[in-house]
C-alpha cells in the first residue's frame, strides 16, 4: 500500500514539475551575435520632456493622469506622475541603476507599493542593457539581458525597432511592456504586470 502511495506521489510531483512549472522559454533559435549592448531609444534624448496621458488600472480602480519623463543627463532621469488637476502623485529620480523617491503621496507611500512602483517605472525608462543571449525568429529577434539580477527580454522586429520588453522569472512572465513606436518616439505604450493587477496605458500628449 505504502509503495503504491509513494509511486503516486512521485508521479504527481513529476507531472507538476514538467507541466505547471515549465521553464519560461525565450522564443526563437539561439544565435551568436557580435552586438554587446542595446540602447532603448524611448525616453532617451537628453533635455527632451516626454509627456504622456496615463490611464492606470489598479485592482480594478481606474485613474487618469499625466506622466512626465525627462532625461536630465547621461546618468539621471526624472519621472513624475500627476493627476489631471496637476497635483503630484509621485516624483522619482533614476540615477544610474538606482531609483530615488523625491516625493510620493501618502496614500501610495507603503513599502510594497513603493518597491513595485520603483521597479515598474525603472523598467519603463531604463535605456542601456548588456546583451547576454540573442534569439532569432521569423519576425525579429529576442535579446536577453538582466536588470538588478532579473531576466529581461527585449524584442525587436525585423526593422530593429524595439516592440516589447518583458521581465521574466525562471518560470513565468512578470511584467510586459509593449511599445507602439516609430524611430525614437513611442506614441503609445502598454504596461501590464502579472504580479499584481496593474495595467498602465500611455498615449503621447499632443
Amino acid at each position, binding site marked *: 500500500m505504502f509503495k503504491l502511495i509513494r509511486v503516486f506521489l512521485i508521479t504527481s510531483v513529476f507531472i507538476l514539475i514538467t507541466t505547471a512549472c515549465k521553464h519560461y522559454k525565450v522564443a526563437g533559435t539561439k544565435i551568436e551575435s557580435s552586438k554587446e549592448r542595446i540602447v532603448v531609444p524611448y525616453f532617451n534624448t537628453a533635455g527632451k520632456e516626454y509627456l504622456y496621458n496615463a490611464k492606470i488600472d489598479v485592482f480594478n480602480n*481606474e485613474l487618469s493622469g499625466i506622466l*512626465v519623463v525627462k532625461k536630465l543627463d547621461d546618468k539621471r532621469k526624472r519621472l513624475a506622475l500627476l493627476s489631471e*488637476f*496637476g*497635483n503630484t502623485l509621485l516624483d522619482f529620480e533614476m540615477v544610474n541603476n538606482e531609483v530615488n523617491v523625491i516625493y510620493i503621496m501618502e496614500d501610495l507611500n507603503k513599502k510594497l507599493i513603493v518597491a513595485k512602483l520603483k521597479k515598474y517605472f525603472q523598467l519603463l525608462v531604463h535605456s542601456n542593457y548588456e546583451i547576454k543571449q540573442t534569439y532569432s525568429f521569423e519576425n525579429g529577434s529576442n535579446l536577453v539581458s538582466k536588470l538588478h539580477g532579473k531576466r529581461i527580454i527585449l524584442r525587436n522586429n525585423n526593422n530593429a525597432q524595439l516592440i516589447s520588453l518583458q521581465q521574466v522569472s525562471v518560470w513565468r512572465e512578470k511584467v510586459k511592456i509593449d511599445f507602439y513606436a516609430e524611430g525614437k518616439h513611442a506614441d503609445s505604450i502598454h504596461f501590464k504586470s502579472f504580479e499584481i493587477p496593474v495595467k498602465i496605458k500611455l498615449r503621447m500628449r499632443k
Partner: protein
Amino acid sequence: MKYIVLFCTLFTFSLLAQETKLTAQELSAFKQRVEQETKSLKSIRTDFEQSKHMAFLSNDIQSKGKMYLRSDGSLKWEYTSPNVYSVIFKNNSILINDNGKKSTVSGEQDMFKKINHLISGSVSGKLFDDKEFNISYYKSGKNILVKLIPNNKTLKKYISEVNLYFPQQDATVSKVKLIEPSGDFTLITFINKELNVQIDPSIFNH
C-alpha cells in the same frame, strides 16, 4: 557698466516681486467688497487655463477648460484641451467623465470634502473666515494677494500654500496658485468670467 545693468535688473525684479501687507483700513475695505459680492453671488461661469510648474521641467504643462459653480455648492471642472475630462462635485459625490467613460466616487471622504471646499471657496472668495487656514493679505502689483496656509495636517501634506489673486477693483478671484510642499505649483487663471448667469442644470448631470 555691467554692475549698473545688474543693479538695475535686480532693482526692477525686486520692485516687481514686492508684496506689501494691506493696512487695517485697506483690509477692511477689501473684505467688505468681497463679502458684498459673494452674498449676491448665485453662479460663476468661466474659462480657465491651468499651468503646472515643476522645477525640473523647462516648459510648464498646460491644460484648458471651463468651470461652472453654483451657490448650492455644485461645481463642475471641465477640461477641454488637450484632454476631454470632467469632474462634478455635487451632493457629496464626485462624478468623473473621462472622455465618455463615467464613474462615481463617494464624496463622504474627508479629503474630497476638503478639496471641494478649497476649490469652490477659492473661486468664490468664501475662505476668508475659514479656521482651517492661516490667512494673510498683501498688495502685489495690480492685485490683492491672499495667502492661505493650511492648518489641517491632512491638507498640509498635499498643499503648503494657496495664493488667491484679486484684481484691485474686482471682488472675485482671477488666479489661484496651489503650491505643493516641494515648491512645484499649479496656477489656474480664470478668463472670460461671467457672474450670476443662468447655468443650465443639465451641466451638472453625469
